[in-house]
């Protein structure tokens, strides 16, 4: 039984990070209609900035993280302004290709600037593990889950109860109408890209202790966040979060009790099955389209 709960704990921990990344993905997609393939690379870059501030410049951990988040803010803003906004009228695939180009540019720059080595980055909280009835609980894991919940709560409050949130939801629903209503749609784009990049940076920084800081560190999280977003459904903001947590837990349970080598395939299989039953994700809503 202890093993079962251990897996659930670990699943919640990584699932939270998938949730953060997936939320960023969906936020960008619903407002600016782009699937941001470069999300993982951008998160990796921000994490490297955090590491450089911490290790290279000797800042304290909290300061380094804040510095990285400020960087992520600017990063998201710049990328959206320079690369995405000029192409806002282009088709979905064209925008996809732009983010593909971004993967190459950001990835290449990261290697050139930060080198190709891996580096150790500390956990957010380095306290000793607690043993709760046979289940080893790491304070850091609890911290990650707590942070995710806090961010979720904050974001949901913002989206549902503030003016900025209304602007985001309006743009997500129907851009032209939102513009007619006087909503500064371009500002909403910037906002969502900034939030998404910051979410990615947080996910990367929290992921770093496990995967080490390297140019390929976000590959797995990135892929899983796509699955999470699709599973939960692009149509809502809570869908991807729950999708992320499910994926995290499922991954571990399938790996433990069924098969480690085939677990990725099985999880994908379950995703496909879900999509057959609910084509727009678990929490998805069917879109209405104009003819």
């Amino acid at each position, binding site marked *: 039984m202890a093993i079962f709960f251990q897996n659930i704990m670990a699943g919640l921990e990584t699932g939270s990070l998938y949730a953060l990344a997936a939320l960023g993905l969906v936020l960008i997609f619903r407002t600016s209609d782009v*699937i941001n393939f470069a999300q993982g690379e951008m998160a990796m870059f921000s994490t490297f900035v955090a590491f450089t501030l911490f290790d290279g410049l000797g800042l304290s951990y909290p300061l380094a993280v804040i510095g990285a988040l400020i960087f992520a803010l600017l990063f998201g803003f710049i990328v959206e302004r320079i690369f995405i906004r000029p192409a806002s009228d*282009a088709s979905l695939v064209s925008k996809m290709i*732009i983010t593909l*180009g971004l993967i190459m540019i950001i990835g290449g720059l990261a290697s050139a600037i930060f080198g190709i080595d891996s580096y150790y980055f500390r956990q957010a909280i380095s306290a000793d593990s607690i043993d709760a009835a046979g289940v080893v609980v790491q304070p850091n894991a609890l911290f990650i889950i707590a942070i995710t919940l806090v961010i979720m709560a904050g974001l949901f409050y913002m989206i549902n109860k503030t003016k900025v949130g209304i602007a985001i939801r309006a743009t997500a629903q129907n851009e032209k109408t939102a513009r007619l209503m006087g909503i500064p749609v371009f500002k909403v784009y910037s906002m969502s890209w900034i939030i998404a990049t910051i979410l990615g940076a947080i996910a990367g920084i929290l992921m770093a202790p496990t995967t080490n800081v390297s140019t390929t560190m976000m590959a797995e999280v990135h892929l899983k966040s796509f699955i999470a977003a699709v599973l939960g459904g692009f149509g809502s903001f809570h869908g991807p979060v729950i999708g992320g947590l499910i994926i995290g837990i499922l991954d571990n349970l399938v790996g433990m009790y069924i098969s480690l080598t085939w677990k990725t395939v099985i999880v*994908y299989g379950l995703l496909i099955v879900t999509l057959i039953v609910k084509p727009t994700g678990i929490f998805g809503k069917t*879109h209405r389209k104009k003819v």
Partner: protein
Amino acid sequence: MNLSKKQILIYSGIILILAILPFLLGFGRSTMTMINTVVIYSIAALGFNILLGYAGQISLGHAAFMGLGAYVSAYITNTLPDMGGLEYILGILLAGIVPLAIGLILGLIALRLEGHYLAIATLGFGVTIQQVFKEWTGFTNGFSGMNAKAINLFGISLRSRESFYIFSLVILVLLSIFSYNLIRSKIGRGLIAMRDSEHAAQAMGISLFKYKLIAFSLSAFYAGIAGGLYIHLIRFVEPNQWGVELSLNLLAMVVIGGLASILGSVLGAAFITVIPEILKEIPLIGEIRNFSMILTGVALILVIMFIPHGLSRITYKIKPLVKKTRRNKKLEDQEVV
């Protein structure tokens, strides 16, 4: 047939020139290998264009079909006894047909999904099939990869890069003609109607599902054939190359070259394959780590931003510019402006 006699002659002429060009320019062997891979990727891009450019469906798992074609052809030509060349024809045909069948099955499952959901589902398929490549050692030899022989058609060996070029060029031309006819046929018109507005097409009695399935399976067929040709050129296949990166490259080829354009598929394949290689050869700058990767990314973005309809439609951009400059000049001369 809607091509005038004049157009047929022009196209035949262009194809003949393309066929002789490498010999005239005396390309070195490694350049010929690269050109051969361009032809192969053109075939895959051609099929992908049917799916994306005409039917408007996104797939991020098509690399798996190409890999499947490669493994099928390798397996068949390695297992069958020497039949004087027939085994290669069989191998390449099956390299197209098996992915077509798998594409049919996968399409039945996934094609009810839309847009990004379909994209991620196909991503999942691609990863799954790639995992099968890695684990099914009986068929694919797993991680160690599989060797294959060069094509030997009735005594003519296609070992040399030049002869392989002609062979694959012929196949590309045949498949292009097939695509062209497909677009002009009822199926093609149905696909285009579907791409422009699914609901309107449905209202006109077009079965969306059926046409999506046709497009998906055909694109898998093309990818499989490309894979089959690949394995007989490089003569080695392993699971790691048929992943998300290649699928994304196929997508890029079609978009850069130009959606819904046969010429576009070829141009896009050439762009994505050749540009990084050229960039690597630039002295001094080419030595900076990952520089070619950064520049390729920049090139991708520039093309999308400034030539959004693809390289094959670059004239759309140039003609109006030329007209505009001429008109301005004329106005200047007449001292109106």
